[in-house]
């Protein structure tokens, strides 16, 4: 073992370079220079985001502090956080939030479950299966407008193909809850017939994307794992439950998070199928409520508050999903 003194001797002995002219030392270490370059390369993206995201967001937040006058031309006046408090505690907002959450609860899980079902069905080596895959994914190529027109026609009380199952008023105008349950808390989340109709349209339209995502996830599950499970004595259901589903869980989680965000931002089919928030405002989702405040009530202060609320709700929901769902996801391969 060398003592510190030995080490010092060693150092001196191993330092003939001290006599040589000192080389120019680099001013920064390579790590710092790399980080510097990274920041430089980030600048363009940052500028774009600043102009189109960060600034409007902050500006919108600021706008929420001002009450919009009842008549155009009058000056706005600053009311501060009061407007946030008033709007966020209003019945209209809470009703709209319930409608939005209900809509997401209907569309997201059913959309994913149907996507998995179709993907599993189409994940076979059969002749002509490509035709089915094309059918199943085709709704990706339809726009919201087209989907809404198709379903609007189907559900039309005059010419709709589904008018046989239909009572007065028309499905899209029916504000009655789809089932009658007399439990106060649950009752307020029971969707109206009209909301269910819009949700069905949405599920149909998103099914193609859900199918494609789940199919891609299934492709990544190695065949020999299925075969191993089969030889290990697992039946089809057990194989699906114990092998396919866990290995699909990253895809499902992704679809769940993204699907929820999409659901919270749904606007087109709501506006086209059930204008003005639907019968008794039962399809008045948050995005539509914002639009309504801006377009018809001309109240941009309230709309700004609602927009911030939508952002907050989406953020919290996503954080909750990561916190509670991601632990059930297995990323191992």
């Amino acid at each position, binding site marked *: 073992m060398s003592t510190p003194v030995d080490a010092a001797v060693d150092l001196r002995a191993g330092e003939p370079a001290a006599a040589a002219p000192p080389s120019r030392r680099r001013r920064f270490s390579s790590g710092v220079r790399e980080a510097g370059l990274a920041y430089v390369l980030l600048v363009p993206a940052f500028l774009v985001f600043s102009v189109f995201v960060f600034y409007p967001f902050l500006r919108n937040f600021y706008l929420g502090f001002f009450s919009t006058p009842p008549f155009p031309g009058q000056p706005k006046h600053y009311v501060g956080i009061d407007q946030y408090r008033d709007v966020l505690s209003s019945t209209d907002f809470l009703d709209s939030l319930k409608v939005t959450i209900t809509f997401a609860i209907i569309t997201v899980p059913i959309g994913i479950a149907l996507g998995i079902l179709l993907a599993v069905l189409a994940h076979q080596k059969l002749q002509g299966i490509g035709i089915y895959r094309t059918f199943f994914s085709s709704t990706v190529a339809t726009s919201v407008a087209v989907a809404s027109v198709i379903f609007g026609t189907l559900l039309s009380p005059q010419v709709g193909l589904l008018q046989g199952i239909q009572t007065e008023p028309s499905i899209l105008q029916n504000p009655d809850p789809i089932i009658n349950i007399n439990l106060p808390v649950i009752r307020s989340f029971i969707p109206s017939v009209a909301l269910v109709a819009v949700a069905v349209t949405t599920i149909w339209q998103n099914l193609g994307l859900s199918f494609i995502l789940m199919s891609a996830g299934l492709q990544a599950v*190695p065949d*020999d*794992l299925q*075969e*191993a*499970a*089969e*030889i*290990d*004595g*697992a*039946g089809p259901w*057990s194989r699906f439950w*114990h*092998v396919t589903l*866990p*290995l699909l*869980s990253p895809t499902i989680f992704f679809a769940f998070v993204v699907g929820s965000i999409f659901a919270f931002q749904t606007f087109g089919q709501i506006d086209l199928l059930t204008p003005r928030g639907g019968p008794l405002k039962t399809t008045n989702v948050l995005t539509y409520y914002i639009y309504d405040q801006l377009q018809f009530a001309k109240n941009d202060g309230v709309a700004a508050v609602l927009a911030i609320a939508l952002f907050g709700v989406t953020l919290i929901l996503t954080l909750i999903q990561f916190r509670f769902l991601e632990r059930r996801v*297995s990323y*191992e*391969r």
Partner: protein
Amino acid sequence: MFSDRSWPVRLGGRGPREGGPILTADRTGRASEESVGRVAIRGVTKRFADVTAVDDLTLEVADEEFLVLLGPSGCGKSTALRMIAGLEEPTAGSIEIGERPVNDVEAKDRDVAMVFQSYALYPHMTVRRNIEFPLKSRRVPADERNRLVEEATKMLGLEALLERKPAQLSGGQRQRVALARAIVRRPQAFLMDEPLSNLDAKLRVQTRAELIELRRRLGATIVYVTHDQVEAMTMGDRIAVLDQGVLQQVDVPQDVYARPANLFVARFIGNPPMNTVDGEMVSSNGTTGVQIRGGVIPLPPPLATAAGRGDRREVVLGVRPEHLVLGSEGPISATVSVVESLGHEQHVICRLEDGQLVIVRQPSSVTPPAIESAVRMTADAPHLHLFDSATEERVDA
């Protein structure tokens, strides 16, 4: 690596290839007297579209036998194994496991275990859950399950790894988990599809030895697929050589090496491979020999008699590199082309007069001849192999 604990799969355990019924018993006390692990394949053919992967294969694997299916890639050996497992359906023919025809039995009900080349461990499950999965699938009660898992785990030295996931294991450890998952439920037969080919060379040799030991302890029927002739020679009780879906030869390893049934087997088994030289049958002064460029090689009497039947002229003469001796005398003349020294032995590659290459294997203690020097060589007569040029079959089969 393996514990010394015996594996009580079968009472009255015995060595492989002994006749007679055996008493079998599992831990639940069920005992039966039957040839449990027998696997019989009868006239099995598998066609994929216009490709015939396995062509009229008939093969019987005795109880407790270790049969190796050997062949180059694409020869149909894995397809044959997958048909036994129930993962592929035969186009024609029948398969029996035990005394039971299994053509219409699903893979999950065939009572065989398989070790995959990729190991096919469930990535989201811990080692423990991987190993107990076959038991859970068969609804084995929890306490029984725990004991079986513990036994299999001990046997393969996996105790410390039970709570890990496959991604946290090395290749060799994963391989052992795959083995543990196969042995835990004591199936009628084990099917192994190139289980060592994903290991590096050193680990492969070690694991091979472990598998041989494990097999001895299990006393189980094993059908083992490999393209590696060393694995086949060292592990198998018998080797079945396949080429292009057709069974070429089934024999004990020594016979496959010493008496290859045809040219394919002769060239496939052995490293360096057997030298095969085209020649013509000649007869003079009562001795029969094979005329090749560079000399006449006299045939020993039994081979000469067998070769003399019919009016055969074109033949292929085979001789293994270790059965050729270089010297200043001998019936064959050649030129030294390359000398490869492997440390324990050397390979002298010589060119015959017509350009065919012949490998001579000799101990490294012998001084190698100079490159480009002219040499003569003698073939060890009892170890000559003669094949018909047209049929490629062994002449004295």
